[in-house]
């Protein structure tokens, strides 16, 4: 279990998906490396893929799971999706093939996560505008059609990276407030950290059930 400050209210689990080489890890690094600079002075040690952010005055710990994007691993990586509150779907604007695979990624995500999971489409490498292969409009249309949030970002320059993660968190938090996201659901991907009665019980039960059904 994460050792460290417990002064956050929620833990959100994100997953980053997308074809190989679209810059998933770079986005993650771009985002998490900042925790060392200002955001989280009390972070103890280097925690894996995590960063604490603040949404509406609530401290939220984002825990981001990077995934392997190779086609050959698609079949076995579904356990990544379990309990993800947010999914960042990444493609490379300079490689059309990565864009074309989005629909299959989206299908996986929809099938393997709960309906309230926030899916955020990110067109990475927008710093390479000259080599662009996928137009913003095209991707935007795709996002709108599927009800996704969308932004073009650059892991290299850091442009829009922060925004993408924060927007996702806001959306998730919103659904919690609205009650759309059931904190007690196993697959919510949200853990309410401070001692609050209720919720946990069912959460854990469902988790174990789902674990056992896992092929692993």
């Amino acid at each position, binding site marked *: 279990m994460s050792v460290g400050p417990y002064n956050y209210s929620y833990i959100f689990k994100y997953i980053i998906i997308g074809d190989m080489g679209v810059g998933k890890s770079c986005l993650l690094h771009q985002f998490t490396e900042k925790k060392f600079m200002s955001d989280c002075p009390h972070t103890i040690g280097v925690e894996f893929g995590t960063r604490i952010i603040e949404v509406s005055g609530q401290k939220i710990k984002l825990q981001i799971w990077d995934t392997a994007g190779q086609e050959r691993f698609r079949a076995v990586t579904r356990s990544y999706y379990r309990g993800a509150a947010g999914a960042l779907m990444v493609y490379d604007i300079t490689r059309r093939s990565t864009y074309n695979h989005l629909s299959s990624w989206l299908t996986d995500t929809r099938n393997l996560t709960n309906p309230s999971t926030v899916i955020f489409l990110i067109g990475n490498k927008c710093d390479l505008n000259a080599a662009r292969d996928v137009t913003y409009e095209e991707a935007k249309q795709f996002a709108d059609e599927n009800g996704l949030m969308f932004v073009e970002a650059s892991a290299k320059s850091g442009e829009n990276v922060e925004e993408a993660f924060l927007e996702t968190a806001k959306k998730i938090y919103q659904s919690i407030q609205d009650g759309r996201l059931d904190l007690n659901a196993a697959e919510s991907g949200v853990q309410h950290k401070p001692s609050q009665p209720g919720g946990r019980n069912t959460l*854990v039960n469902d988790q174990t059930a789902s674990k056992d059904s896992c092929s692993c």
Partner: protein
Amino acid sequence: MFTKKNPALRIDEADLKCKNGCDFFGNPEWDGYCSHCYYKERDQKKSPSRGESASRGSQDKDSPLPITMAKRFSKFEEKKQQQRQQQEKRNKFSKLASSLRKSTSIRDSGRLPEPWLEQSPEVERIKQEYASQLSSISPEVSQYMNKYIQALCRTVCSDANNMSIDELSEKVQKFYQNLSKCMDAQNINQELKEQVLDYCEKFTMTILYRNLFCPATTTDEEKDLAIQKRIRQLSWVNAKHLDCRINETNKEVRDLVYTSFTDLLGMDSEKAPQDKLQAVVKCCRNIFLLLQSSVGGPASADEFLPALIFIVLKANPARLKSNIHFITRFCNASRLMTGEGGYYFTNLCCAVSFIENMTAQSLSLPEDEFEQYMSGEVVPTSTWDSSVMMYEGISLMYEHLVALDDMHKRADSVLENTDVLMNKMKDLSHQIKIRVDDILAKTQINLSTEKVPTDIDTENPLLELLPPPIAPMVVAPVTQNTPESGKLNSLSEKKSLILPGITKYAFPSDSELDALGADRTPGDGALPLPMSDSQEFLLTPSSTYGFSALDELATPDELCAAQASLNFVQGLSAVNYDIDISDTSADSSAGVSPHPSILSVSENKDGSPETASVPATDPHPDPDPASLLDTSESPTSKLLLPSPMKPVAPEPCSGLDKESFPEEQSSTPVHSQGKLISQKPPEVPTNATSSNYESFTAQGWKIQSIPCDTGTSDLNNTNRTKKPKDDPGKLMYCDLD
């Protein structure tokens, strides 16, 4: 056998009835009660014990809020009891069902000895590990904790065989939740709560490990074997097949690979699920590290998963599936949902399922090739194993090459040294030849005329005969002397005359010398004072090889010359000659002109009275100092000289005792021959002979075949020859070849 045949006869129907006497049938599992009575009975038993424990608990507490605690406690108790009853109900049914199959389970459940109470050292260690944290929690909490733990252990131990693994898992997860809720209710701070939960998990899982890990009710073991076999079949898969960027040739990377193997294998040896998880985390961290050094930057999941698959394939951890199942079932679920451990464990699950479902397509290989590999018909060229073997072989080879290089160098240096030595030896022999030839050329003239008679002497028999005649020699001189001795004497005199002028004296041949020596011995005897001495020398067995020959020579001059020549032959520097000469001179001097001559010679040539003058006379360039020193050092001189010298003549003895003095040196050879020494003292005073000796010293003489009367002296000589510098130069007698 009988009982089986007619059980009805053996068991009375009344025995089967409930013990309480109600008309229902009893059951051994219910202690002979019917179900109704059994539950009644049990509830009666339990309620008092409950009360006891509760009261005890409240007494123990001494807490500021005993009442509230008691209230809470009772609440918990109610809950617990409900739970337990439910469980027990369920258990009964399952037991009933199972008891029909297994009679053992009845016994187990009936008189369970509460195995969790037998605490293993591991459990003790865990307790100690968490002692500090646990001490900070309030006693109530710890009490609840212990209760929960006990309850869990009891149910699991009793029901492990009857419940499905999923049920057990559910129970354990509920246990975690209840604990957590309990702690939340106590408003324990988060950190402490985590630690307590951690402890409980570790504690219970360690105790229950035997029951929960790979239980017989599951097919885990078969799956373990299946995956193990599968991984073995896939042993040919290498990093390239997986597009895994592990730089196998880098030593650092290879070390990390091995470290991650170890970590992954360590998973099986841990008991608590979080420890197993920690092993996975460690392994994965190492993989990230090795990817970093392989790729040269932070690694992404795109690279990580293939690497993990590769590691799992190569490590082939024992009971992989059992471990994974154990973790998924009994690890605190919140741990698996989030956090590093959860992430890496998920990756591990992915890796395993990838391995299980691996096809030709997933390795981007043609179907037939994949099949061939799987069936073991073909082995891909560059497998990890072969590359590792190659690497190890190569590194070993390199080590050997280095060793070989070193040996080469050494061998070269040895060869060089031997070459140098060879050259030196050649030079030396050449020089010696030249000198010998030179000497021979000079001496031949002198000797040729007179040596003619020596031919007779050359006959070896004479030499052999010499030793025995020693005793008679004293008497013999007169008789024997007649022909040869006279000649010899004359020769020696002549030589002595000649020698002073000529530094080098060459004798024709060893044989001649020998002959001369042999001849002379008698001749010496003929001579009045000196000659007799010389004869005695000759006779005495102690005289050194060369010396003996010299001694045998009637004329001291000749003897000196012979010795000198010997020295040449040996390649010893003039030093040797000097010594030899001095010695010989001494010896010879005994015959013709004894010690005084030697002394005088030394004085004349060296300029310093002490140093042996002889060296100067010798042809060799490095004569005096070395010779002096050497003589002093030479063991022979020390050894030989003292004993004989001291008694005979004080002068020589002193010289002998002193190191590296010409006089001593000169005396040393003499000493070797005890008789000579003894005789010499009287002669020493006569100085006239000394001049003659000098000349002799200059002469070189080859004495090869002359048998040595004194083995010791010979040895000394030979030793000296071997070490030219050390050798005093006195006794450098070597055979000229």
